């Protein structure tokens, strides 16, 4: 039986390597509509590499999938707090991003970030912030404090929406309460729990899909929101304002990394280098409306994007990037969330 299995897998391996010998290929695994087709076409034209894009729905899926042994992808796009996990689990490989030709274009503050201190693994994709948005026609507040989101005024009663997954909500609560991210202190997390349980009284829906629709229809007055997504809602004509509270906002940074099982590592590196060219990165940012980490892209932005408040935060804004939590801290977060959801 075992020999059959090995034979079978050897045959499949030959089949796969055989097909990749035929033409230069690159398999990207990313969120849907996070990879603009015009960018892919340009890359294919410049390099002659055939690109294939598949899609997933969350960092958690990506991790679970790689952890369970999925193969066949050359580039994946996790958020910053998943990079160290993928590294420590041996799921992604060093590709010496710092030695790529266009690495010099990377903005200084994004070079060698704490989640990849030697910049061995990750090349930039998009970054943005998580905060809340409000419908300025139905709400008298100005979105200056996280209090408006966690302990809202009477006019928001029954018309508040928060994300459906704990990570970003708990991180925002940590900022509001002045508790460090990934706290392992049960007493501190109890405070978070009380805050979220209190907030739940005002919540009409926990939702991570249709925030802009909720705001436009008036079903909600305040919703958790992502910066670029909020902009898209505003661009449809709705009076949606993305808030920059004084306590700060949660930041996230998605980057390109190469799985250990990748077959076309060189092509993946070519793509990373391609993306650090300001012309190409500007194309991505124009399409996505989040922020980028490459110097000189602003020159290629449209006027609308240049002036969009969602990607041009106030200079004094505190942006906190969530680190990777220890198992103990993670289990506290899960406990809090399960309690809130009971």
């Amino acid at each position: 039986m075992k020999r059959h299995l090995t034979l079978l897998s050897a045959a499949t391996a030959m089949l796969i390597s055989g097909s990749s010998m035929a033409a230069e290929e690159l398999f990207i695994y990313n969120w849907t509509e996070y990879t603009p087709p015009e960018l892919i076409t340009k890359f294919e034209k410049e390099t002659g590499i055939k690109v294939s894009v598949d899609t997933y729905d969350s960092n958690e899926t990506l991790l679970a999938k790689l952890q369970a042994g999925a193969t066949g992808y050359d580039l994946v796009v996790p958020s910053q707090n998943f990079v160290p996990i993928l590294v420590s689990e041996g799921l992604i490989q060093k590709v010496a991003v710092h030695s790529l030709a266009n690495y010099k274009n990377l903005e200084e503050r994004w070079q060698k970030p704490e989640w990849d201190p030697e910049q061995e693994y990750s090349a930039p994709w998009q970054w943005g912030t998580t905060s809340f948005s409000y419908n300025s026609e139905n709400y008298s507040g100005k979105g200056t404090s996280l209090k408006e989101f966690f302990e809202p005024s009477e006019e928001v009663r029954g018309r508040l929406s928060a994300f459906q997954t704990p990570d970003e909500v708990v991180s925002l609560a940590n900022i509001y309460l002045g508790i460090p991210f990934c706290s392992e202190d049960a007493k501190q997390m109890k405070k978070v729990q009380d805050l979220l349980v209190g907030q739940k009284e005002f919540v009409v829906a926990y939702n991570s899909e249709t925030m802009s629709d909720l705001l436009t229809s008036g079903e909600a007055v305040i919703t958790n929101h992502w910066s670029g997504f909020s902009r898209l809602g505003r661009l449809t004509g709705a009076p949606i304002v993305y808030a920059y509270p004084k306590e700060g906002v949660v930041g996230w940074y998605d980057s390109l990394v190469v799985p250990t099982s990748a077959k076309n590592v060189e092509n993946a590196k070519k793509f990373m280098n391609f993306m650090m060219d300001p012309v190409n990165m500007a194309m991505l940012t124009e399409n996505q409306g989040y922020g980028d980490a490459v110097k000189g892209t602003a020159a290629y932005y449209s006027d609308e994007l240049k002036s969009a408040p969602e990607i041009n935060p106030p200079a004094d804004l505190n942006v906190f990037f969530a680190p990777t939590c220890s198992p103990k801290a993670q289990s506290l977060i899960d406990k809090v969330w399960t309690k809130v959801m009971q």
Partner: protein
Amino acid sequence: MTVHINKPATGNKAKRILPVGHYRGLGAWTVFFFIFLYLPIVVLIFYSFNANRMVMNWGGFGIDWYIKAFQNDDIQKAVWNSLIVATVATVFATAIATIGALVLARGGNFRGKTVSLGLITLPLMVPEIVTAVAVLIFFSAIGMNWGLGNVIIAHITFCIPFAFMPIRARLEGMDTSLEQAARDLYASEWETFRFVTAPLLMPGIVAGSMLSFVISMDDFIITLMVGGAGSTTLPVYIYSMIRRGLTPEINAVSTVLLFFSVAIVTAYWIVSNKSQTKTVH
């Protein structure tokens, strides 16, 4: 084909005295049922002409999303993947379920019958995410990496109970006298199956295959987990859009799919009706 000789005529004309087995309000109930069923579909089609970027807020009439969908290679590939997977999975699952159901419903009582029943319905009883992770671990353990092939195998597996249940329900309590008669008249085993059993089973097979087709077309979690490179299906594509928000492009694609399905069946109807009238004359 016609087994039920004594079907009472539909009681449209005889309003006062309903034939036995007919009930007042049944038609009205069915109309209400179909309104309930199709109201969301009408809304969905209507919003595919939304000029707005958001899927749920009306921003004027436009066909931009259809143009976009027809230019979007990724979405087309996803649609084809879905159709291929659903078709292949339905054919295999229905075939496997049919012979399984025949044995279990007709084979009398035998040791292992309950266990067999349990095994066939097992895919139904496990939460999807668990199946998804477990099957993925199993596939990577044996080094199986056939891209879309992985997805098809997983779909065949979980479609079997959906095809099996209606077929078995059909067989249960169906008497075997017609088949016996055919055998008595020296029909071979195959002829008996082909000309007696299969036609009797048809409604069950139609119901079962339709169920497995729609179940397969709609599956997300298992496909997401099990699929290898190049096997993004339409549901996976749609669910992974949350980062940017769903657009009416999805409605446009769904509408095209609906019309495609209606067109196929209408064509089939016309063809089969024609051939029927030919054989009659």
